[in-house]
């Protein structure tokens, strides 16, 4: 990793996204305290945590495989951190455990063992176990990757609402850009140990600073040195009135995607363009000459 | 984990240093001293003990030990291989069958050796059956107290040590390989010889390591099964520290034995370590 530097605000939902091997998990482990940086610092609330072992840092990690203690019940798993802190009073611990389990909608499963509950439930226990300690930052290492598609979508919303309710800063690591864009207040894109860009989802999507960011976050048409998203390209048979950017092209094929159609066409200079258009607008035939046009504001030059 | 780790290692390291390395160093020192009157050692320092090893009597014992260990190991290998092969392909009953092989090993080695004495003595079960029940022979067969009995005892005692690593390797063998061999026209024996045996080399090496070394340094088996008539290195060493009261000589032979052990470990590689 090289020159990775970013700030997470209090109560922010911050995502670290990138392909596997880009260093996002390493960054997480550096913050959690499982590894020490060779240069640079980790600051928590402005104070350096250098040399501080993981068990003294006020951050908590939700592991990718949940890492629930197999020999402890759900309740004892959640209570683990509280007990280590020397919290007195079995009653107060039980109360806080119950509150945490309620927060993740798992009330009633206190006495089950990890192998007796489902994958989704295990993830909630992992969340409750970390949240009950009210850390300054919650680190989530690809928490949704082990779930099936349907469960993943449900959990996304739950995570977002959980973050809003608790007000704890979430550092969410994922390789799925859709997840990152839909959940975060701000996103950081990493690639091969480098930080490519940090910004809000609309910022990074509409104004990518590098080619990698542009292509990682969605489809891009590279036309005449500029990038344009397929959904920004309009298509018509007639020449549009005073277009900001336009090009003439020949339709090659189209792909039916259900809610929209991807129209593939070839410009006069040979470059290929994919336009995303609504189904009802599409009656173009292969070989037809069409006009493509988009706004200058939709272009980006990284 | 810095400081806790030191605390965790300290007792183990201390035991190894004081009760393993240090004793061996003392033996090393003793091998260069002279014998005391009632056992023990005295100065002056001398190489006499090492020189005595070259006496033909002792070289014969050395050679006999190597020979017996080699024969026992080979027999173990030959006998264990089909068994391990069978267990590895036994499907659901694998673990049960393997445990049945290992179970005798978990009981007493001394008792298992004694059990063979019970069978093979002149008044033992085998001779009683042959002599009195079936009248096959007219006088008891000398089945015990010879080299053959020692080899039998060693093979019996260390067979599980050969089965286990062989099984570990054979279990990982892809059954499709044998099917492929059959498909290409190889009869079962050829398939086993040309495919299974070469692929099970790591297991064979580990097994030989685990059997040859204890056989080389055997004491109990040649003593009981051989009746003290078959003298191996182990018996010779024990003798020096008890009745013969020649500790320096015993020390020298012990170091020779250790050197042989280390040599075998080197030659057969560290395969045993991986499979253990």
């Amino acid at each position, binding site marked *: 990793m090289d020159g990775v530097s970013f700030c997470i605000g209090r109560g922010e939902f911050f995502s670290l996204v990138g392909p596997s091997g880009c260093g996002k998990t390493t960054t997480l482990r550096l913050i959690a*305290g*499982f590894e020490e940086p060779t240069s640079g610092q980790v600051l928590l609330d402005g104070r350096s945590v250098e040399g501080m*072992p993981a*068990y003294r840092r006020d951050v908590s990690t939700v*592991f990718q495989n949940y*890492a*629930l203690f*197999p020999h402890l019940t759900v309740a004892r798993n959640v209570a*683990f951190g509280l007990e*280590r*802190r020397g919290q007195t009073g079995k009653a107060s611990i039980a109360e806080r455990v119950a509150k945490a389990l309620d927060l993740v909608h798992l009330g009633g499963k206190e006495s089950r063992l990890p192998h007796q509950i489902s994958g989704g439930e295990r993830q909630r226990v992992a969340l409750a176990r970390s949240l009950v300690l009210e850390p300054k930052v919650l680190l989530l290492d690809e928490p949704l990757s082990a779930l099936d598609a349907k469960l993943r979508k449900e959990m996304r919303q739950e995570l977002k609402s959980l973050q809003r309710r608790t007000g704890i800063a979430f550092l969410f690591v994922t390789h799925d850009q859709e997840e990152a864009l839909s959940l975060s207040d701000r996103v950081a894109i990493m690639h091969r140990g480098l930080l490519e860009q940090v910004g809000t989802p609309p910022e990074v999507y509409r104004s990518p600073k590098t080619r990698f960011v542009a292509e990682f976050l969605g489809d891009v048409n590279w036309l005449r040195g500029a990038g344009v998203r397929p959904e920004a390209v309009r298509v018509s048979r007639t020449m549009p009135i005073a277009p900001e950017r336009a090009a003439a092209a020949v339709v090659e094929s189209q792909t039916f995607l259900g809610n929209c159609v991807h129209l593939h066409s070839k410009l006069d200079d040979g470059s290929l363009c994919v336009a995303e258009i609504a189904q009802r607008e599409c009656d173009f035939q292969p070989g037809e000459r069409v006009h493509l046009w988009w706004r200058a504001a939709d272009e980006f030059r990284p | *984990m810095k400081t*806790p*780790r030191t*605390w*965790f*290692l300290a*007792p*183990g390291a201390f*035991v*190894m240093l004081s*009760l393993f390395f240090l004793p061996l160093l*003392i*033996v090393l020192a003793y091998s260069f001293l002279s014998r005391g009157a009632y056992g023990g050692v005295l100065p002056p320092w001398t190489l006499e003990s090492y020189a005595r090893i070259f006496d033909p009597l002792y070289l014969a014992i050395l050679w006999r030990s190597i020979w017996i260990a080699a024969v026992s190991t080979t027999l173990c290998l030959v006998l264990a291989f*089909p068994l391990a*092969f069978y267990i590895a392909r036994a499907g659901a009953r694998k*673990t049960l069958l393997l445990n049945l092989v290992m179970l*005798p090993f*978990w*009981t*007493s*080695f*001394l*008792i*298992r050796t004694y*059990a063979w*004495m*019970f*069978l093979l003595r002149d*008044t*033992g*079960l085998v001779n009683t059956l042959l002599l*009195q029940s079936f009248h096959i022979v007219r006088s008891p067969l000398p089945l015990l107290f010879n080299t053959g009995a020692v080899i039998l005892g060693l093979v019996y005692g260390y067979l599980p040590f050969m089965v286990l690593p062989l099984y570990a390797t054979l279990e990982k063998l892809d059954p499709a390989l044998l099917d492929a061999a059959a498909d290409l026209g190889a009869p*079962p024996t050829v398939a*086993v010889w040309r495919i299974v045996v070469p692929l099970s080399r790591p297991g064979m090496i580990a097994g030989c390591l685990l059997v040859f*070394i*204890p056989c080389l*340094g055997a*004491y*109990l088996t040649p003593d*009981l099964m051989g009746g003290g008539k078959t003298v191996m290195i*182990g018996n010779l*060493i024990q003798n020096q520290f008890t009745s013969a009261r020649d500790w320096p000589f*015993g020390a020298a032979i012990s170091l020779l*034995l*250790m050197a042989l052990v280390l040599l075998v*470990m080197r030659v057969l590689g560290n395969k*045993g*370590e991986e499979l*253990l």
Partner: protein
Amino acid sequence: MKRFLPAYACAAYLFLYLPLAALGVFSFSNSKIAVWHGFTLAWYGGVFRNAALMEGALNSLLIAAVATVAATFIGTLAAYALWKKRLAWLTGSLYLSLLSPEIVTGISLLAFFQWTFHSLKLQLGMHTVILAHISFSLAYVVIVILARLRTFDRSLEEAALDLGANEWQVFRFVTVPLLLPGIVAAALLCFTVSFDDYVITSLVAGVNSETLPMIIYAMARKGVSPEVNALSVMITVGLGALALISGRLERAR
């Protein structure tokens, strides 16, 4: 070949169990030689009435118990530390101690005790046997625990650290409870190895502490005795039961 293998396996199992089975059968035989002469439990009774045997058994049990507790404790800690970070000389010496011929280990410990005790004016006895047993059984414990640790999920320890447990607490509240079946299996192995040992024990035991194997050896050298048969059966059944329990634990979780 399809028919050869099962038949061979049968023969092999017979070979393995025949001697012990024969001992077992004839331990109930009312005869001093290998002839069946009627059922009796006399020899078993004789074992319990033999004071020397009983004392030897007690000694063996005591030695095995103490050595097991010590070796399991020391070995578990050492295996854990070695799992975290390798220490070549220690692992190497443990393997060497495992493969070393017992006779060499025995005489080296004898020389060691004689050399140290000379200055300390101590004698050989139970304490030397116990020390010797701890020394040679340590390797067994470390190997069993290391094998268990190889399949241990490291992220569980990291999660515990993350939740605020320091390294010692991680070991105590997460690692040890999950390692417990392996620890008990190692202890049972240790007990068996210690109880059965003859060579090393006979060299360092001194005059007054006879163990059961030493007595059995002496009796075996003199000749076959039905009491030894009965005793052998009892020991075999006892140790076999321990082995089965240990095997159960290995498979647990």
